[in-house]
């Protein structure tokens, strides 16, 4: 190495730069989820004649769209170091607000706008607690989410509110060129997320803030503004997911979103993103989303008892957490 230091300027180093090598365990952890997804697809293809059909694959695409959109938002926030678990409540308030308002005769556009405002307010509220009151993100978003869910129950009087005219949202159930609309929306979200994170200055700053917020601050990056931005992205995507659920079910139910906690956090954790911030990508999260989606679909096709489904889902989550623990341990060697 000393030799390199005294090398003549301009002379290219004799040997290629000795890149610090990722060690085998890290590599296994990195490619593990791709292998897992491939293995699942293989097993289900062999076990069920229905699995590897275009119709069924599109069904999977359709079914994971909602989880996927939410998981993309959670991923972006988590890269910035903020774990946002208020997405379920945003789904609930979105669906309920639109259903209740349109039932009361409010024009659909106004109702949707109100839902967008409400959803973004959740993001702002999260930001105020996290950034200005210095409360940890998990606690802040849990608190805000709980309150907002309560609000959704209140708005709906604890009941399921059917859309007066479900056809307004029937575009959600439509297909364009044979592809389900929610799936297309999810694809758009992932492409946008990928561009944002890997191609833009904002994306670079999101990684920097999550990786080392004080260093980012000292480098003049507006850390607080970035926190608000990711939290707004996260809740904005949850609003989108809420509209999709509303269109899919034709009703606003304050319990919507409650069950997404497991699937979304499971998918995000599976990606190996960790809770530390500064790492991760929507591409890897997508693999996590697909693993959970394929598992859910395949087990139904095989008629596997739901207890085993839950068990398996739990096992997947435990695996994800263990993988993360191994990573962290290795990092802090």
């Amino acid at each position: 190495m000393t030799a390199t230091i005294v090398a003549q300027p301009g002379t290219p180093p004799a040997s290629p730069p000795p890149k610090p090598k990722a060690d085998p365990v890290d590599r296994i952890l990195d490619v593990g989820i791709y292998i897992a997804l491939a293995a699942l697809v293989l097993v289900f293809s062999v076990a069920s004649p229905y699995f590897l059909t275009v119709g069924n694959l599109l069904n999977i695409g359709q079914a994971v769209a909602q989880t996927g959109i939410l998981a993309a938002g959670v991923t972006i926030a988590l890269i910035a170091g903020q774990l946002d678990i208020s997405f379920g409540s945003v789904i609930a308030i979105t669906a309920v607000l639109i259903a209740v308002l349109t039932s009361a005769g409010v024009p659909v556009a106004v109702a949707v706008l109100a839902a967008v405002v409400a959803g973004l307010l959740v993001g702002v509220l999260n930001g105020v607690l996290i950034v200005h009151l210095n409360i940890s993100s998990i606690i802040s978003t849990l608190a805000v989410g709980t309150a907002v869910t309560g609000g959704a129950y209140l708005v709906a009087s604890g009941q399921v509110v059917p859309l007066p005219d479900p056809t307004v949202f029937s575009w959600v159930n439509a297909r364009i060129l044979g592809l389900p609309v929610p799936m297309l929306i999810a694809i758009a979200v992932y492409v946008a997320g990928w561009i944002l994170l890997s191609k833009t200055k904002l994306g670079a700053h999101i990684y920097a803030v999550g990786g080392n917020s004080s260093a980012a601050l000292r480098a003049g990056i507006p850390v607080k503004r970035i926190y608000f931005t990711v939290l707004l992205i996260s809740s904005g995507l949850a609003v989108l997911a809420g509209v999709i659920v509303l269109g899919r079910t034709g009703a606003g139910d304050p319990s919507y979103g409650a069950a997404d906690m497991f699937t979304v956090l499971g998918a995000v954790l599976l990606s190996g993103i960790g809770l530390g911030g500064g790492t991760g990508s929507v591409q890897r999260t997508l693999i996590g989303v697909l693993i959970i989606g394929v598992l859910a679909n395949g087990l139904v096709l095989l008629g596997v008892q739901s207890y085993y489904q839950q068990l398996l889902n739990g096992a997947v989550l435990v695996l994800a957490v263990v993988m993360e623990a191994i990573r962290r341990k290795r990092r802090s060697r």
Partner: protein
Amino acid sequence: MKHFSGLSSALAVSATVLLLAGCATAANSSAEPPAAGGSGDRYTQDDVTTATGIHDVTSVFSVPKSLPEDLNLAYINPSLGTPFFKSMSDGYKAAAEFYGVDIHEADLGNFNFADAVNKYDTISVFQPEVVGILTPSGAGLVDRTRADGVKLLASGIPIEGADGFIGTPERETGMLAGSVLAEGVAPLVDDEWADQEVVFVGLGQAAIPTTMERVESGLEGFEAGGVEPDSAEFPDLGKSATVADGVRVMADFLTAHPEQAIAVVAMNDQAGVGALQAVQAAGRQDDVRIVTIGADEVGRAAFKSDDGIILGEVDLNPWGAGWRWVEAALALALDEEFVIPAPERVITRDNVDELYPED
């Protein structure tokens, strides 16, 4: 009819009983139940009675013995992790096997109704003739099934635009509970309770009209049973109807009514068991009698611990409900009619071991 599908669906526990009993309306309620004896080409009530054993199912449709080839059904269960719906699942699987049809099942996990359409999509690859679901928000499903030419048979909660509905009628259910309560309370009114004011209490959820219809019918059945209470009250269990809610509401009620004798109809076992615990805690065993609706595991277990306060539990027979869903689905698939039965079985301390020996 008021089309209400009100159910705060997160309330897993309270929902268990409630869900099976939607509005008492069905397009096909005028149809004839199966004949007792029977022509050879259809299953009779006797066949069903034999086949269902202790579950003692009253058939809703006399199923032909020969069914079209590869007729298959699908049921999207709201929560297989809940005992009530697990029993129901066992019931429809048993019926499918008995009648020789396939049934495919999907699970919404813990009442994740938002996922219903996705689960339908998944299960639609089997191309079922009829799909069943219990959901308070089924509008999206109506569109999806219609587009696929699949018949939607709502279960427990009616869905507007669905091809059919089968569930337990609220009014009859409540009336039965009320009459059981009257039967048990009548001797007390003449004797131990003679000097006391008698209050009828219906434990329901004010925000969910179906539950209120159920407990108000309880009062009707109570009076029809020959007991005229001095007053009737319907304290609100609130957003959920869990054991804890029952305890809370009943404890407050007992405090507010220290002298009175109290006859309770609870909308579900959980609320009834909660009420029982409140009574035991307050030492008011002599003043209170309770009838619950559901007869699920929570309710049945209460017989083992209580001191004669719970008089009976109207048996919504989830296993039988599952069985009957299959019969109704077959009727729908064959464009025939089925009847919606009212509950008739009451579980008491005396018959609980016989009817549910596996407890």
